[in-house]
Structure formats: C-alpha cells, structure tokens
C-alpha cells in the first residue's frame, strides 16, 4: 500500500496542492493553522470517505468554493490506481477509481487503507462507549469491507424501529405491533451478526493490544479487553422482552448500540483508574494493534497517518513508538519541532504560500 502522488483542489485551507509522495516517513512541519493536518485528513478521506476529525463533508470544502477534489495515485494490491473523490456542497460525494465512477461508494473501501493516530485518540479510553464501538466497527470494516453492509443494515433497522416507537407515542395497536415485530426481526438479524463480528474482533485484538502496550510503556502490565454486550446473546428475545420499556421510552433501550468494550490495566478499569499517561499509551496501543491486524490480514501495511502525536508524549515514549511502528509509508505532522528519536526521510514545510521541501532533514 503506497501513496505515489496527491492532488487537492479547494480542500480545507488548500486551494491547490500537488505533492509527490516517496515511500518512507514524510514529516509536515509548520506553524499552527497552516493546514498540516488537512493534508493527512485528505489522504484519510480517500480511504474512508469521511474525515477522521469527525466533521461532515461540507466542512472539508474551502470556504468560498462549492466543490473540493481529492485525487491520488496509489499502489494497492501491487497495482497502480487513480482514486478521485469529489465533495460537493449539499450533495452526495462522487468517487472515481481509474476514471470509472463507482456505482456504490462502498466499493472504494479497501483501495487505499490508512491507520490514523491523533491526539483525539485519548477519548478512545476516556470517552463514551460509542467511541469504542466506532473503533471496533471501523476496524472490522478495514479488515473485511463487507462488514460495512452489516453495520449499515443494523443502523438502518434501528433507525426505523426508533422512528416507529416515536410514532406510536406510547400506545401500541395491533397493526403497529405487527410492524414492530418486523423491525425486531430485521434489527435482530443484522444486530446479531454485528455482535458476532465485534466478539471475534475483540478476541483477535486482545493479545495484540497487550503486546503493543508493553512495547510502548516498557512495562509488563496486563491489558484485558472485555466485550460487554448490553443484552444477552439472543438479541431478538431481548428486543421482545424489552418491548414494553421501549414503547414507554420511545426508543430502543438495549442492543448493539449500547455495547461496551471494557479495557482494564492490571485488572483496573482504564477509564477511571489510569493516569493520563497510561490512558494515552493505551489509546496508542489500540491504534497500533489495529494497524498490525489490518497489515496481517491484508498482507501490506496501511499508510500511517500520525497527526501531532509526539507533542503529547515524553521522549522515551516517542522513541518507543518510533521503534514500534512497522515499516511502510508514513506521514506525520508536528507543530513544535520533531523529537530527537524521529528521523523522517524528508521534511516538508507547510506555509501560507504552499509546500516547500526543506533540505537537510534532521
């Protein structure tokens, strides 16, 4: 997996950018607000068709423009492809691979794979369960793109069921009861598969996360990942037995949308009992483990995007992270100089006027 060349038109702060991307580690440096992270965001967009900063597509279009275009030459499965995404204000995005319009944008997934590390990852450990569910589901899709269909079927069925529960407004007649039966069965079908996918993934990740944590922290602490589904194994049975509650509360109370991934460090819950440093290290381990699993599954390492991760780490952790990062193409951003242990193959200064390759990389 490698990015060869990248073009941006009206993407975020960048009116027009052309960047050749050699293999190895490239570092984007420069003052705040120059658009370093936007470059990583654009690369990430071609992989997932969403922003890893969690903003809607419209926010990616340069203010004053109507359309943003991200275009890249990539090597994927040993073949070169031209991938293009057009983001139009207020309309669905369009995606072309090798000049062919994709019938479903979902078909793009897997053409370019990235692993993103960002300072926001701390919320994977500290934040709400929804972020950990997203981490699991995103990773499941990276491993097997067809999992995306399961996830979206579940989300659609859940939305339909909730819409019906709102419409019946607390009182269920026979006809609505029958319709609810239908959505119970559709939601259970997709939801049960989603729960299986999450369970298998967590089993697979468990040792991988622990290894990553021990490498990064230099400690021998035990890391456990525990899947805590909100309901018993039989989702259909749960939806049926919770029906009265759901009708009263006008939403689906239990199901995969309420699952939790509990992470413990030496048996203690990481969300409440770990120091900020341990939490940050755990978050990095989750990302690193995901990256390694995808690399193992796909056969080539995804492109690494490290958005301002070193600023939050002490020098020894920086060094450990650099050593733990697998071979492969990587892009990183840094506002305040690079740590000593980081030796990029090239350094690109991002300024208001454009990108300038800086001679004499450290």
């Amino acid at each position, binding site marked *: 997996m490698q990015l060869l060349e990248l073009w941006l038109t009206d993407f975020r702060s960048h009116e027009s950018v052309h960047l050749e991307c050699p293999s190895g580690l490239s570092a984007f440096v420069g003052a705040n607000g120059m658009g370093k992270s936007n470059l990583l965001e654009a690369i990430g967009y071609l992989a997932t068709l969403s922003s890893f900063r969690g903003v809607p597509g419209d926010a990616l279009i340069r203010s004053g423009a109507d*359309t943003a275009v991200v275009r890249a030459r990539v090597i994927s499965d040993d073949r070169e492809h031209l991938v293009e995404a057009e983001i139009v204000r207020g309309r669905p995005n369009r995606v072309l691979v090798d000049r062919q319009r994709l019938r479903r944008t979902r078909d793009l997934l897997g053409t370019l794979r990235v692993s993103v590390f960002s300072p926001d990852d701390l919320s994977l450990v500290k934040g709400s369960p929804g972020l950990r569910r997203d981490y699991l589901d995103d990773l499941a899709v990276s491993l097997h793109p067809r999992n995306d269909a399961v996830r979206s*079927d579940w989300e659609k*069925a859940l939305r*339909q069921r909730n819409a019906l529960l709102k419409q019946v407004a607390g009182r269920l007649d026979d006809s609505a009861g029958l*319709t609810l039966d*239908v959505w119970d*069965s559709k939601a259970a079908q997709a939801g049960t598969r989603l729960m299986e996918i999450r369970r298998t993934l967590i089993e697979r990740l468990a040792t991988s996360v622990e290894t990553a944590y021990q490498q990064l922290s230099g400690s021998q602490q035990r890391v456990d990942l525990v899947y805590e589904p909100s309901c018993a194994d039989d989702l259909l049975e749960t939806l049926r037995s919770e029906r009265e509650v759901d009708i009263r509360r006008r939403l689906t109370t239990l199901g995969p949308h309420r699952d939790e991934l509990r992470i413990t460090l030496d048996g203690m819950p990481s969300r409440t009992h770990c120091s900020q440093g341990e939490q940050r290290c755990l978050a990095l381990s989750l990302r690193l483990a995901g990256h390694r699993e995808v690399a193992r599954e796909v056969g080539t390492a995804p492109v690494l995007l490290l958005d301002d991760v070193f600023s939050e780490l002490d020098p020894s952790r920086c060094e450990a992270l650099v050593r733990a990062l697998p071979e492969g193409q990587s892009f990183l951003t840094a506002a305040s100089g690079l740590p000593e242990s980081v030796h990029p193959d090239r350094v690109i200064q991002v300024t208001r006027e454009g990108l300038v390759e800086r001679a004499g990389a450290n």
Partner: protein
Amino acid sequence: MPWVAGWATCSAGVDVATAQASAVQDLIDVFGRLPGIGPKSAQRIAYHLLKADAEESRRLAAAVVAAKERVGFCSRCFNLSETEICALCTDERRDTHVLCVVEEPRDVIAVERTREYKGRYHVLGGAIDHLQGVGPEQLKIRELLARVDAENITEVIICTNPNLEGEATALYLGRVLSVPGLTVSRIASGLPVGGDLEYADELTLGRALEGRRTVDHPAPAD
C-alpha cells in the same frame, strides 16, 4: 501534468443569475427539480426548448397537462390508469387468482417486460419506511387484504425491492397474509443472468448462495 481535471471546475467570473433572464432561470429550476435531472441537464433542456419551435414547447406543455388530467389510479390495483379500472385488471386472459404485489407503478412495467407473469397486480404505493412517515396504513395493504378475500386469490407473489425497507414490507405482508389456502411467495434475489460470478458483489453473491437450489437430476436415458 498528465492528469487533467476529472471534473470541470465551475469558476466562471460572472454572476450566473444576472447573466440569465429570470424566466429562463425559472424554467431551469423547474426541470432541475425533476428526478434524475441535474443542474447541467436542466440547463440543456431549457436552452433546447428556447431554441426550438414554439410548437414544440406547446406540445410538451399540453402533454404534461393532459397526462396529469387524464391519468389517475386504478381503483382496484392502484396502477396508473386512464380509466376507473385499468386494462390489466379487466384483461380476461389473465389469471384472476394470482396477484403480484409491487411498490410502484413502474415496477408493474418491469415485471410485465419479462412476459413471464400472467396474473394481476397490486401496487402498494411505496414500502414501509417510518423515517419518511410511511407505515403500513399509508400503503394499499388494507385494500390488498380485501382483494385477497373478495377475488378468491390463491397465490400472492411479493415483488418489493430487495433493500431493507422492501424486505421489511415483504415480511410484514407475509405476516398479515397468513391465511389458510393462500400461497405467499417472495421473488428470489441473486445473480444477474448472463453475468460473471467474479464481478458479483459479496452481498449479492451471499444472497444467491443462501437461496441455492438442488440441481435436478437429468432423466436417465432408456
């Protein structure tokens, strides 16, 4: 740079609204609201009409008005019809005991094109979609049940779309149509005929595998 822009970028320096008469803009807007017509096509159609004979515009306007005035829904099957009861419902050669249930009138045309089906139709007018405020009450399901009763129907074939809403509608119909003596079937979904297996997406291929059938044994030669 060998990679020329894949899309023409809209960066005209003039304000488009002022460069165009407002009646023209109104016309473009009207076309632009039609399904399947983007801003570029809307503009092309509008300019074409303005350039062509006045007669062509008059014919178009008359055709739209006439269709809207004359065409309504068949009171039996809810397909589009110019008469109270549509031609398909009154055609005596068709099997009166079989009903094919579809979402929209255009689906009737699709099934008719197969020339495989000789029964009658029932158009629901959509699929269950609570997000759009469409529940079973908004569809012609009560009318369907009445027909099954009144017309001595022996088989109902559910031809709703193979997406989540269509499948849910099919499941719902299966439940309300569980009447003794009535066969309810769902059309199969799977691979397109004449296609290649390697080009099928995983979802379709997965469905096709689920719905597999045993191969008939050829009759032994005597």
